[in-house]
């Protein structure tokens, strides 16, 4: 008593049998099957269990609208839960398992939930599990969570790869059924660039499921020849196994299932490819979804959508059962009856909710017992349908059947159009929603437009294709339309007859086990707007997004509230139309390729030297240059600091932002952008700058070199380089376009090294080309020059010191960077040079009290940093006016100070808080925090920079350093934020 494969027919390749397993049992299907069709052909009816009551479920549909037949596909790291068996192409070796059942599909202990159904009604959770409060997380919720969910994720990294790609066209046609093919043909013949996307592995759409004849040939043959004509045109691209799944402003997203029909992707092939398609016009020809009917126990395996029954029959050569009945409110049921007859299977009864038989089906009426104005009152069967009870004309009759085809009308597939927010409009004519308006050039055609007769579909799709082509200047000749035998599937909505005794068994949302009684309850409790209904009952939130459920529920609520369906409301479809693997959307932006990596010129050298790297934005900076003698990395940093302080060191500072400012008004421009007076920097010199945001807070600080009266170079901090450049562009273009100034970001164009330490002048002298002298008098601190080094290499040299020692920054075109670094090490060897990393640089800048990213964090003001005196108050510049607000200059603000532990070995860490001593640490005694901290090998003590409320007024005070999240707690003293050479004498030595 179940489905079986017909002796012949169907679009499967019977010469290519394929082996597969379901729940460990071996079966055979054929190439061209889906997993669902192959299992049905093998007599399998029970595919899964429902979400809540664990009711036995079979196949309802033949596509993405499937709510029941969900399986776990593949094994191990490739295991994929919730796969619709109806949308899986069969391949040799396929392994699938049923899900959400224990211990087995046939005997599921959780089915006991069904007995508790009167309690587990909609909204049940909201009314209970509140006593006692602490039991929710410990007891109730874990139980609920374990019971909920469907399939199991693999839990490990997906081994397959994905790609992203872009495509562009004049006309995108979504769906290669009769409407899509005809629209594509018309637009393509006119000369428009056409992309035709088809979800299935072959073109034809509904034509594959019906026994239609077009131009005297079977419809699938017509589809093949139409596709052949399209494929031969140079302006057409046909993309099979490609689902257009989301519409965005200006583009569509489509998923191409490149390898899902193989056990695993072949070498160098992605599993799926995620497409961004930019189309000038779009024809939405994605067909429609059939709706089931509402009747008690309408969820038993064996009850199937009428059009799906036909798909299995005609496309896959599979009969849904041996003894079938039909229950319909549309002509579609009659089509199915006719195809059953042709297959030699006479339905035992056709129950139509309507009063009269459709005239075009006299052949069916003659051969099949018909019950008009009939209703199915109930069904029987343990793990599958065994009988139906039918009422018609006051009588009840029982039929033993193993398949029931149901048809409750069709919902046009308008989801893509709805993604633009257009409200769908109700059509009384087809009792369904149509796309509201034609948003962003999207034109529905065919069943997606609510057109169901094949002749009409061809005519309207051809017109739509021509219109899309014409809109872009391609004149389309009137196409010769194929001749077809006219069939129609007009239908009406079958009324639901409320019945408190039975409503609990009328399933509306199959996957989520929402029944008519749940809709009644939602109504009774006031959840009457369609969104409340949905959210309260979970209707339409299952993996098929309510495709088969929403209209039935809406009709019930309309009936209960005495409103029309459009008055009751409609829920907008949200992207994606078909669920979309996260891996596919991410494409190849995974692992190390998640974000770009920026490497400096000496990356390879540093790597060879064993330097660990630190991420600074997208940059990788060498953090330490360890040598075997170092006990650990802390020792490395200490050695590197000592090297700089006593001899000479070299480090890579290429990541600093470098912005050229050129033009007669460059100085004027910088004076407006900076809070300092950049124009006061003389050519050949460097100067400190501060930039504020317009709201008066610190944006960045750094150095500016002036190489000529009309040529400045701004060194922005690594972290702020991009935003500072954007800001400067804005200032130039939007605020002061009248100034004669140009900007260029050249960060990546130059490799730059700091050579620091008392012996640095000798090293630099050895680099620069004669006759340049690097002496205290000729090239003192803050000098800047464009010159050549190493026999003619163009370079920029600035006598800048971040370390607090006599130091230079030398920049060369990036291509010379690695060579220069090696040369520096070579010539420096005689002076005891060593490379140092970002860690040692950080230690030395803390010793010097220079603010960095932790201090200039967007929340601090120049006043907080003790920089107020550096600002020029007498000119308008960005941030000038708002930086003077009293709240930004309040003495009580947390302001920059230095901190030293009373015991030099007490570890200070950035992020620790500074609290008053002698009182319990609390929000009230919280004074501030440490922003940067380090072990200073120079001072032989931990030191820190921090922000302390009123800090500069409290120098010498003892405070408590409180770090409860790391267990730190020690005493420290507030000091000035410069620990080393406070008068800045060393660079001048």
């Amino acid at each position, binding site marked *: 008593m179940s489905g079986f494969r017909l002796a012949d027919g169907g679009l499967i390749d019977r010469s290519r049998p394929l082996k597969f397993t379901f729940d460990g049992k071996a079966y055979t299907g054929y190439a061209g099957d889906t997993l669902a069709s192959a299992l049905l052909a093998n007599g399998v009816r029970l595919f899964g269990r429902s979400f809540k009551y664990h009711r036995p479920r079979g196949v309802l549909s033949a596509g993405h609208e499937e709510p029941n037949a969900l399986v776990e596909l593949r094994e191990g790291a490739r295991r994929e839960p919730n796969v619709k068996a109806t949308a899986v192409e069969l391949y040799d070796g396929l392994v699938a398992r049923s899900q959400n059942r224990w211990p087995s599909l046939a005997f599921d202990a959780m089915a006991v939930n069904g007995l508790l159904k009167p309690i587990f009604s909609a909204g049940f959770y*909201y*009314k209970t599990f509140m006593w006692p409060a602490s039991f929710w997380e410990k007891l109730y919720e874990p139980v609920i969570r374990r019971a909920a969910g469907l399939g*199991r994720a693999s839990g490990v990294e997906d081994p397959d790869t994905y790609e992203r790609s872009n495509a562009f066209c004049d006309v995108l046609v979504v769906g290669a059924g009769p409407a899509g093919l005809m629209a594509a043909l018309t637009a393509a013949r006119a000369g428009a660039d056409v992309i035709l996307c088809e979800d299935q592995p072959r073109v034809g759409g509904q034509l594959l499921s019906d026994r239609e004849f077009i131009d005297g040939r079977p419809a699938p043959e017509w589809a093949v020849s139409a596709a052949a004509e399209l494929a031969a045109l140079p302006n057409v691209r046909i993309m099979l196994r490609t689902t257009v799944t989301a519409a965005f402003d200006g583009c569509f*997203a489509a998923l191409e299932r490149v390898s899902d029909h193989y056990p695993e992707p072949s070498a160098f092939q992605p599993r799926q490819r995620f497409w961004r398609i930019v189309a000038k016009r779009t024809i939405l020809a994605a067909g429609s979804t059939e709706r089931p009917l509402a009747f008690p126990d309408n969820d038993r395996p064996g009850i199937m959508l009428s059009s799906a029954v036909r798909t299995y029959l005609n496309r896959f050569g599979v009969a849904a059962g041996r003894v079938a009945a039909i229950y319909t409110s549309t002509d579609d049921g009659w089509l199915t009856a006719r195809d059953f007859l042709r297959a030699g299977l006479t339905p035992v009864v056709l129950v139509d909710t309507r009063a009269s038989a459709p005239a075009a089906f006299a052949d069916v009426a003659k051969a099949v017992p018909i019950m008009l104005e009939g209703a199915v009152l109930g069904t029987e069967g343990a793990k599958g349908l065994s009988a139906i009870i039918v009422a018609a004309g006051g009588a009840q009759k029982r039929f033993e059947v193993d398949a029931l085809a149901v048809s409750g009308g069709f919902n046009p597939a308008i989801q893509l159009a709805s993604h633009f927010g257009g409200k769908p409009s109700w059509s009384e004519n087809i009792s369904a929603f149509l796309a509201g308006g034609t948003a962003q050039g999207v034109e529905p055609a065919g069943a997606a437009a609510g057109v169901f007769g094949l002749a009409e579909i061809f005519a309207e799709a051809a017109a739509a294709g021509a219109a899309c082509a014409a809109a872009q200047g391609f004149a389309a000749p009137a196409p010769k339309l194929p001749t077809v035998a006219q069939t129609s599937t007009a239908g009406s909505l079958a009324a639901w007859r409320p019945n408190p005794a039975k409503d609990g068994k009328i399933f509306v949302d199959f996957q989520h086990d929402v029944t008519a009684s749940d809709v009644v309850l939602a109504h009774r409790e006031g959840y009457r707007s369609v969104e409340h209904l949905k959210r309260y009952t979970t209707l339409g939130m299952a993996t098929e997004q309510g495709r088969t459920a929403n209209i039935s529920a809406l009709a019930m609520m309309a009936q209960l509230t005495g409103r029309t369906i459009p008055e009751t409301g409609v829920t907008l479809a949200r992207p994606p139309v078909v669920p979309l*693997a996260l891996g596919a959307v991410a*494409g190849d932006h995974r692992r190390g390729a*998640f974000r770009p990596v920026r490497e400096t010129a000496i990356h390879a050298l540093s790597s060879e030297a064993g330097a660990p790297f630190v991420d600074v934005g997208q940059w990788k900076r060498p953090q330490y240059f360890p040598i075997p003698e170092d006990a650990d990395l802390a020792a490395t940093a200490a050695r590197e600091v000592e090297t700089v302080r006593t001899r000479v060191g070299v480090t890579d500072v290429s990541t600093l932002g470098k912005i050229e400012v050129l033009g007669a008004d460059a100085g004027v421009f910088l004076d407006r952008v900076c809070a300092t007076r950049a124009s006061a920097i003389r050519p050949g010199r460097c100067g400190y700058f501060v930039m504020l945001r317009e*709201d008066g807070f610190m944006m960045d600080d750094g150095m500016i070199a002036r190489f000529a009266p009309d040529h400045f170079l701004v060194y922005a901090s690594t972290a702020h380089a991009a935003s500072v450049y954007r800001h400067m562009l804005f200032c130039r273009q939007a605020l002061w376009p009248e100034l004669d100034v140009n900007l260029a970001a050249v960060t990546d164009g130059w490799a730059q090294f700091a050579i620091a330490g008392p012996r640095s002048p000798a090293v630099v002298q050895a680099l620069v080309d004669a006759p340049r002298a690097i002496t205290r008098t000729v090239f003192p601190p803050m000098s800047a020059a464009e010159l050549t080094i190493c026999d003619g290499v163009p370079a920029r040299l600035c006598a800048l010191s971040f370390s607090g020692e006599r130091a230079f920054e030398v920049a060369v075109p990036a291509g010379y960077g690695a060579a220069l670094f090696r040369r520096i090490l070579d010539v420096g060897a005689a002076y005891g040079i060593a490379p140092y990393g970002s860690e040692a640089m950080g230690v030395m800048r803390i010793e010097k009290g220079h603010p960095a990213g932790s201090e200039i964090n967007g929340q601090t003001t120049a006043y907080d940093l003790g920089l107020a005196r550096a600002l020029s108050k007498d000119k308008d510049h960005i941030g000038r006016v708002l930086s003077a607000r009293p709240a930004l200059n309040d003495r009580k603000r947390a302001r920059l100070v230095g901190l030293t532990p009373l015991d030099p070995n007490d570890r200070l860490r950035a*992020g620790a808080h500074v609290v008053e001593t002698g009182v319990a640490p609390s929000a009230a005694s919280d004074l501030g925090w440490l922003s940067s901290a380090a072990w200073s090998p120079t001072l032989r003590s931990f030191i820190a920079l921090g922000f302390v409320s009123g800090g500069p007024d409290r120098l010498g005070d003892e405070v408590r350093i409180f770090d409860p*999240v790391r267990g730190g707690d020690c005493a420290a003293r507030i000091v000035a934020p410069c620990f080393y050479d406070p008068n800045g004498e060393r660079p001048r030595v």
Partner: protein
Amino acid sequence: MTFSGFQLLRNALNGGTGWTPHWRKAEPKPAYDVVIVGGGGHGLATAHYLAKDFGVNNVAVIEKGWIGSGNAGRNTTIIRSNYLLPGNIPFYELGMKLWEGLEQDLNYNAMVSQRGVLNLCHSDAQRDAFARRGNAMRLHGVDAELIDREAVRGMAPYLDFDNARFPIIGGLVQRRGGTARHDAVVWGYARAADKRGVDIIENCEATGLRSEGGKIVGVETTKGFVGANRVGLSVAGNSSRVAALADMRLPIETYALQAFVTESIKPLIDCVVTFGAGHFYISQSDKGSLVFGGDLDPFPSYAQRGSLHVFSDVAENAMAVMPMLGRLRILRSWGGVMDMSMDGSPIIDATPIEGLFFNGGWCYGGFKATPAAGFCFAHLIAKGEPHQAAAPFRLDRFATGRVIDEKGVGATPNLH
């Protein structure tokens, strides 16, 4: 009716016929003491606390659509109080305490689940910033733990510890943080407020704010004029539009934020996890769906939909931190409409019009604030002065410079 075990049993036996509407379908009376514009979580919570804690029962909440139709029903349901700045911590912690007693207060199970919030850090600097935040929380009496990489692995072994572009070095954990069932929060407040006599009027849009002599006198609505001594605006997402009815301009721009759910799967992710080297947050609902989100869409929008780039970016973030998600499927995505304030913090304050009060600017942190915002807004409306926990959220802070800028990006609302 009070929900109890007894009621559940009784209704199981009588086919559920004993259940009644959770709130009346009220129509507006001519006048109220207080009219709240906006039937989202905040507006309904305000009405509930006005009636319960401040003795103001003659209250109407007017809602242009169905209650909870705005951001209350479009968020990723995270609750937490793990803030950095002293202006924020007390407020969100007040909220956390209200969440902890919410079900008993409302007699409605909003599924407040303190499953923990884990923020990942990926550099020493970020760890130190987390330490500063965690220490600030501890000083305010809020739970916070800074954990190392191995402890993160213990909590979330499925994260990418081996191949990540930005390695995971540790995390900040607030165990009391978690999630709540967003719709149920709305419905629970509505039911509780209704019980205390509050009129909840759906499908009633405010079309005007009528004032006389600088004092509010009522609200023009699509259901006619409704008089009121005091009016509270609680319409985040549409704050600027509604404030414009009173000729006010706000320090707010409106942006779309996308959120996502996957198909339902068996338990996989136990706590809320946020990725620190991009922008991504994820949790798993009791129903089994993974719920997640990321960055704002970059341009101002009222359209409740996002762009493909952010859609893709969120997926990249997901894969960067949890490569096991590759084969799991996005079931649905949607866009919320965010009041992005100029410092990333909210506003709960009186306005220049006497009797007109404003609650908004929640950026994308409004859901977690629902109880505290409702309580503090009720306090402000009832007493005319701010609750201490919300005292920093003044409108004039932008003029004075006492901004509360957690991210430190200044007046660039799309970066908060």
